[in-house]
């Protein structure tokens, strides 16, 4: 029963689950950093399906794509963390809900 390869659907499911966990993280956490990590989880989740599709279709676009995703992730992280630092300079907190000047 342990023969044969894993059906792609399972990989996709895994990625979906991780993706949603990422979403939930964004929704429920107030710690900027953690929210940010959750977003990273989402990106990673996507990577899984990219590779899975590559594997399934015998193509390499997906891998290129995920390569790019990593660049993007890196870039975003750098900028994002920079922003967080800048924020922290004016307002020493990482609690998202305290950034609430702009509303209505």
């Amino acid at each position, binding site marked *: 029963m342990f023969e044969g390869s894993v059906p792609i659907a399972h990989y996709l499911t895994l990625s979906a689950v991780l993706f949603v966990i990422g979403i939930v993280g964004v929704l429920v956490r107030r710690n900027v950093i953690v929210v940010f990590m959750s977003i990273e989880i989402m990106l990673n989740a996507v990577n899984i399906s990219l590779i899975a599709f590559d594997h399934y279709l015998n193509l390499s676009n997906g891998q290129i794509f995920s390569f790019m995703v990593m660049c993007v992730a890196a870039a975003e992280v750098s900028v994002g963390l920079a922003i967080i630092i800048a924020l922290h300079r004016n307002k020493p907190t990482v609690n998202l809900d305290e950034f609430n000047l702009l509303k*209505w």
Partner: protein
Amino acid sequence: MLLKLTCLVPLFPLIGSIINGFFGLRIGKNAVGIIAAGSMALSFLTSILVFIGFLLLPEGQHIFEQVVWSWFGAGDFSVDFGFQVDPLTLVMMFVVTGVGFIIHVYAIGYMHEEYSFYRFFAYFNLFASAMLLLIMGNNFLLMFIGWEGVGCCSYFLIGYYFEKKSACDAGTKAFIVNRVGDFAFLLAVMYIFNIFGTIDFSEVMHAAPEKLVYAGEAVTIITMLLFVGATGKSAQIPLYTWLPDAMEGPTPVSALIHAATMVTAGVYMIVRCNALFNLAPMTMLAVAGIGAATAIMAATIGMTQFDIKRVLAYSTVSQIGYMMLACGVGAYTAAIFHLVTHAFFKACLFLGSGSVIHGIHGEQDMRKMGGLKNYMPVTYWTFLVSTLAIAGIPPLSGFFSKDEVLYHALMDGNIIFWGMGISAALLTAFYMFRLVFMTFHGESRVDPNVHPHESPKVMTMPLVILAGLATAGGILGIPLFHGWHILHNWLEPVLHFDLANALHHSEHILHEAGRHAPSWAHLLDPKEHNIWLEMFLMVFSACVAITGIAAAYIFYIKRPDLPEKFTKGQWGFELVQNKYGVDELYDETFVKPTVEASNLLWKECDAKAIDGSVIGTAKIIGWLSKQAQAFQSGFVRNYALFIAVGFISLLLIMF
């Protein structure tokens, strides 16, 4: 050619009014008076010239039309600004210009103390020219100009003392009540155009028998509408209520407008349209009935009033009722005859009353008069003559005219009309002499510190002239020998109507339209003129008149206490004295509800419902925008949540 002068007749008073209106204040009262009366005199003379010109017309031509300019039109509808002269017009022209001139003269004296003398005469002349337009117009719309013009002028003149609320109300009331009539008139005109494709009198009257079915729906509706118009102008039931109030105006106004001329316009119009009315038996019945009813009702009210002018006003209403009755039974000559004589004696009576009021400084209540005959003899005698005339004492004019009306009521109508007419005559004689006795005889009840005096010449001369006319006016229609009847022969061309031919056409039309024609044969069997019966009736009505006078004499000279005894606590009397409560009735049924409805419409419907819905929409949008704002909580988390929700909902839409 003299007839070319026709258009000048209404023009002179118009010019006079314009001059007085614009420069009256500068040129001084005398000049104003001269201009006003002069313009009337001029148009009177012109009418005489026109009359001569008319007599010179070749044999068989009984109408002259003069189109001044083409007024307006659209498509195949067009209406000219044109005058027509025919025997009927001429008669009316003489009445209006003649009596009008006399009353103008009188007014110069009567109004002399007024500050805005010029305004009065501007209106007065304007009225005269409007009235002339009314009678001389050669089509319905031009007549309508005059028709509304006179109404408008009477509005001004009734409200002449515009600081008195009652005067203003009376004026407004007169205008609006008249408007009700005009509304019907207007509809009639449209209907006429719809059928005839023209609104020219001569053409319409000529084409009537071919285009209309005898007793058909169309003609009945048209004539009914016209008649409603007439009731408005001529103060017949149910639209008569404005006339008594109109007495708020200066007395000359009452004399000229509300006795001699304007109020008779309705009668004139019906006679003018006789060709239509002849085809509408039902309408005729209505006309006669309303006329007779008005005659009696007004007379009864007249018996109970104490304001001298109101009494005369009601008597006017009742006399016009007579004329209507005459029209209703097809005796158009009689109607016109009575119109003319009435113009004479009623004008005289009003002016007389004016002279009385003038003599005792504006007192109008007869209970504060009495025994004036010694103070103002001329007024008294002229007044008496006219009273006898209206009461129908031979050989004064009123006798003949009224008698002719009654005769025809009996012959062409039926016994009921005659009965009503004769009883109205009785009442007339009674209340008129009641008036005379209360005013001039008995002991004076005048306020002691008022010294009655006779009026100046300029006021008494007209009285004399009018009294003379009231006496002699009967000549126009003394029916001594069969067929010898000046007025009748004179009006023949206007009133000629060939019933047989009309019936023939109607049958033809109905046949074409595939309907069956009722038998009209009985309408055609001839009626002979029974001279002896007429003689008898004359005598009878004379006796009736005398009875009335006698009654009045008993009540107000011999036994002055009787009226008290009879009227005390009689609910009937109360009812009659406040005019059968018709005014109140109208107030309750029409005026108040309208105003309340309007208020409701405005406050509830307009402000709340209609505008409310508009504003409501705006409010809803505002509320929604508040909601839209509320989502912008400013928390990143919620924003993300929205994205997620959007995601799931889009998924749901997709799958």
